[in-house]
């Protein structure tokens, strides 16, 4: 639906020319963007700064002790319970983003290369499920994967299994399946945008010069669509790590992720500084993991070429 915008906003070039009227254009541009910018500054940037500040303070019953300390980070990084949650959240986020990109790439490719005049309709059909209530979709997966659920009854009536599988729901696999479904469109759109930008004559040239279909894809299409693949990775992986609803509804005991622990610090446990430190650590860890993935992808594609 908004395919073009995901890719384009970040790439707007900003040529600066001198001259007084240009300066007035600059002033008008700044004035135009300032309401939105200030809003984001006040309700996004400032709150994040406050989280950062809190993560260095201590909870003292109902008061906050404002002396600088790294105690919260020590706790976040060394307590086994949080370490396990971090590791699991990162693994799940990685698994989800890889699976989402791998399964979505052919769809983006199909729409871009075989979508014909109905490309927009295809894109729309892909995005519709992702815009309907996230909570309801997760609930629906619970119905599908449950003991007496659609998957089990379906497989049993087909004769594939004799007894209902108990391994479908309440584990990290269920979390991964549900999240791959949730993020499908967010992977398809950026990949589609970058595929659309590829000059088709380059692929033809590779074919004319004797590359097979597969080689032409690996050496031309895939490297040129890498920016889309990377933004798909980022847009799926980073938010996934902090997912709250899916682990709670379909994750069971071994599907618990870090968001549950963060929420607990702001609810029952009432330890804001620890909650803040867990949030900051989550962001730092997922950014590092995402950076590793981006480097690995770039490296892999360069090797293919």
């Amino acid at each position: 639906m908004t395919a073009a915008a995901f890719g384009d906003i970040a790439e707007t070039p900003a040529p600066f020319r001198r001259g007084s009227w240009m300066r007035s254009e600059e002033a008008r541009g700044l004035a135009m963007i300032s309401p939105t910018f200030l809003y984001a500054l006040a309700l996004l940037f400032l709150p994040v700064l406050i989280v950062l500040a809190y993560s260095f303070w201590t909870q003292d019953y109902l008061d906050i002790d404002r002396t600088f300390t790294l105690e919260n980070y020590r706790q976040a990084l060394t307590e086994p319970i949080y370490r396990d949650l971090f590791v699991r959240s990162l693994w799940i986020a990685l698994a989800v983003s890889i699976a989402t990109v791998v399964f979505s790439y052919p769809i983006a490719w199909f729409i871009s290369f075989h979508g014909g005049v109905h490309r927009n309709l295809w894109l729309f059909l892909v995005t519709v499920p992702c815009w309907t209530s996230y909570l309801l979709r997760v609930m629906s997966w619970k119905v599908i994967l449950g003991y007496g659920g659609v998957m089990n009854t379906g497989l049993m009536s087909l004769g594939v299994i004799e007894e209902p599988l108990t391994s479908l729901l309440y584990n990290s696999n269920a979390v991964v399946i549900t999240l791959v479904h949730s993020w499908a469109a967010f992977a398809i759109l950026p990949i589609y945008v970058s595929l659309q930008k590829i000059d088709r004559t380059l692929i033809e040239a590779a074919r004319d010069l004797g590359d097979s279909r597969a080689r032409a894809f690996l050496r031309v299409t895939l490297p040129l669509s890498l920016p889309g693949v990377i933004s798909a990775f980022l847009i799926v992986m980073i938010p996934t790590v902090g997912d709250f609803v899916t682990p709670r509804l379909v994750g069971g005991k071994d599907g618990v992720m870090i968001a549950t622990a963060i929420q607990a610090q702001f609810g029952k446990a009432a330890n804001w500084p620890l909650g803040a430190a867990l949030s900051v650590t989550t962001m730092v860890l997922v950014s590092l993991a995402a950076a590793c993935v981006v480097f690995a992808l770039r490296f892999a594609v360069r090797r293919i070429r």
Partner: protein
Amino acid sequence: MSLLTRRLAFLPWLPAYVAVYFLFLYLPILLIPIFSFNNAATTTFPLAGFTTKWYGTLAGNGAMLEAARNSLVVGVCVALLSTTLGICAARAITRYRFRGQRAAAGLIMAPLFLPEIIVAVSLLMIVLALGLQLSLLTVILGQTVFCVPYAMSVLVSGFEGFDRSLEEASYDLGETALGTFRRVTLPVVAPAIVSSLLVTFTISLDEFILAFFLSGTEPTLPVYIWGQLRFAAKLPGVLALGTIMIAASILMLTLAEILRRRAESRTRIALTPT
């Protein structure tokens, strides 16, 4: 020859994959309406017959209606606020070039690349640190941060390709800046604006995490549903409510898509020299 056979062997796989993928994509959404008309409190096949009684129970459910009213208020406010902010940002980005443009756009688009729980937690902290009460207002303010990137995406694609010379002509002919916006720019970009309103309303209607953290004692529909999910006996009612919400979402998104396309073709017409 081998090329031809290879091509023939290759092609049917892709449509088959696309079909399976779309089944995967739509199965969860189709099951909710199916079970909402099922004459049993459980969600298993085979179905137990057709009924509309679960929808009947919704009408007399005061807490649900209250939540629906809250969602409506929040949705309308978020749609108006985030689209207004989106218009400013989208226009600044498509119409002007200035230093810091990318940084500003980056900050505005950042919620797309942040775990929602962190946005929610940080907003909760600032609201409570300022001594404000959690209410629908805090939900509106929070969801707006989250909706502006989507509004901007829709609006930028609507504003892009808008011909500057039309505006310049209007200035030259003596219109004021405001008059030009109202009489020249607005008619061209109006469908994109309505499309943005619909999209942000839909996101707000379905948004859970921010509402869960920021709503206090006034639940929106998703927060209400979350509370119901603990009770197995309430599931059919939730399915009926879910069906209505999904239908509403799809309706609004379809409308938004139609408008967005009209916006695209309109800017194209405006660009075509006559």
